[in-house]
């Protein structure tokens, strides 16, 4: 077997592992209930049906989807505004304790988030933040912000200070220079950090299941578990939910893929 054939086979295998479950989920979500567990298994639905998607609608999963979207977008917005501002300050200003703060942020990234779950739940319960609309965005932002600060700070470091100086000499205030020059210059890192924040919030199950209990606040991943009963699973609606939940991250990756790789690389390799 030539090197090239081996490589192609390996790639094919990886592709099958990644795409296979997605295709299977999509096919299952379109199969009539009786066909899902048939033996031998059928790959293609015959006939295709949207019944399971309609079922999701009837069960109010639309509301859960909206909750996930709102939580994720709020996380992205807050994490980018706060994290990029902190990253900029750490990159451009030397102040007492700035180095310590940076080490502190990096150290925070090393703490497993789930180890903080119980103390956080107790704390939030005590201060009345448990099971509220702001609970999850707050926790997600706290979780992603060290990474956002780190990625944006590294990008700002790589952005020559002369560009901002030139803009101020050209007649722009510091804020205008940031808007016109710094933010566009840091676009790859901002997009990468935003995508990371979005995915953390979008994919989360444990935090949402622990910190919220009201049906009105239920997110998509939590809602989908309700289709897994003690005595069996409702594969049709479950897979329909999985397909819907997969769409935003896939679209995100397709639209921003050139920034995602570049953005994280720019965070990893200075200059």
């Amino acid at each position, binding site marked *: 077997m030539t090197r090239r054939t081996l490589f192609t086979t390996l790639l094919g295998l990886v592709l099958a592992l990644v795409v296979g479950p997605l295709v299977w989920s999509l096919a299952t979500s379109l199969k009539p209930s009786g066909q899902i567990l048939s033996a031998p298994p059928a790959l293609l639905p015959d006939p295709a049906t949207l019944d399971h998607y309609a079922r999701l609608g009837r069960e109010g999963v639309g509301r859960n989807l909206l909750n996930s979207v709102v939580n994720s977008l709020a996380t992205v917005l807050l994490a980018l505004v706060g994290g990029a501002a902190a990253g900029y300050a750490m990159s451009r200003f030397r102040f007492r304790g700035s180095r310590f703060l940076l080490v502190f942020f990096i150290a925070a990234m090393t703490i497993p988030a789930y180890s903080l779950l119980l103390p956080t739940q107790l704390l939030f319960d005590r201060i009345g933040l448990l099971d509220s609309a702001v609970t999850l965005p707050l926790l997600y932002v706290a979780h992603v912000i060290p990474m956002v600060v780190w990625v944006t700070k590294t990008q700002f470091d790589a952005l020559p200070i*002369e560009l901002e*100086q*030139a803009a*101020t*000499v*050209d007649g*722009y*205030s510091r804020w205008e220079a940031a808007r016109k*020059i710094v933010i566009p*210059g840091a676009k790859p890192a901002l997009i990468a950090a935003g995508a990371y924040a979005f995915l953390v919030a979008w994919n989360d199950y444990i935090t949402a299941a622990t910190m919220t209990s009201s049906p009105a606040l239920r997110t998509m991943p939590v809602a989908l578990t309700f289709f897994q009963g003690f005595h069996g699973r409702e594969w049709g609606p479950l897979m329909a939910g999985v397909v819907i939940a997969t769409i935003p991250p896939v679209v995100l990756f397709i639209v921003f893929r050139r920034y995602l790789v570049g953005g994280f690389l720019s965070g990893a390799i200075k200059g």
Partner: protein
Amino acid sequence: MMTVTDRSAYPTNRAAGIKLSKLTKKFGDVVAVDALDLRIEAGQFVTLLGPSGCGKSTSLHMIAGLERATSGTIEIGGRLVSEVPPQDRDIAMVFQSYALYPHYTVWENIAFPLRAKRRRTSKAEVEERVRYASSVLGLDGLLDRYPRELSGGQRQRVALGRATVRQPAAFLLDEPLSNLDVQLRLEMRSELKDLHERLAATMVYVTHDQAEAMVLSDLVVVMNGGVVQQAGTPLDCYNNPANTFVAGFLGEPGMNLLPGRLERERLFVADGVRVRVGEPLPSVVGRAVLGVRPENLALGAAGDDGITGTVRSVELLGSRSLLKVVVDGQTVTASVPPVVGVGPGEEVTLRVTDSAHTRVFDADTGSSLTVSPPAPLPGRHDTLHRVTP
């Protein structure tokens, strides 16, 4: 470069003078610029010249407002601007790295200063001025390109275009040619000179390249260790260096400096050196340093008064040769015709072609003891370090 004859696109010249008074910058305990006093007249081309770390760029950044002065004042056009932010100082600046905005096209880069809210320039005027600036700098065909698609010389032109698209009170240029190759640097140097003449603008230029300073400047300010060593016309600084630093720094190679003794009858002596120095000179006798430029030395005959030593090397430059002679452990350089007829190891005597070209410096302070005729100094430095008898 395209020549534009219609200058009506440019309104009246707004060049303003700049006055720096006791301008000081400290970084912690390090004094980067020490009590700089300088008056630059409107329309003058002034160069801050010196080696790396001499404080020239820091001074320029303070004028721009990019660096806050520790003490002292800055006036531009008679207005005190020490506490005014850069965007309100009415200046334009060209950076060593060009600082072109990478996500903007050439057109957008040049138009950028005009589109600032505080300038309130109409679209039609922006269009007209960008077209004028780009045609002057030969950028017409490149307006839709991004900086990454340009050569070094083209980027340099865009940076100049962005600075010249409006008429600021002064242009500040921070080593703008240092990233270009030699050929392009010479070309751009001439273009800068033309640009200054056409705009009649006040320009403050920072460089460590003395050739640029000589060619471009009305006034050269030689700095070292944050202190002005001499301010004067290029020729005056070259011919009448205020001290041994300026003497050694200016010229390629710099002035030969030989320690020795000044005797009566203006006779300078040291081991292997016997030179009659020029007038006028204060009647001092004692330890001193003789300064003589390489081009003022020629091969003499044995027994002549002059500088006697052993040839170390002969460096052929084409039109001239540099003859390096070791005299009492110190190397003396003479710029001589290309064919010298001597080689390493031979003993030679270098004679001073004209004693009027010699300079004598104080052995302790390094200050010039030679009294030169006063040269006209536009915007003369207040604390000119010229030693008077």
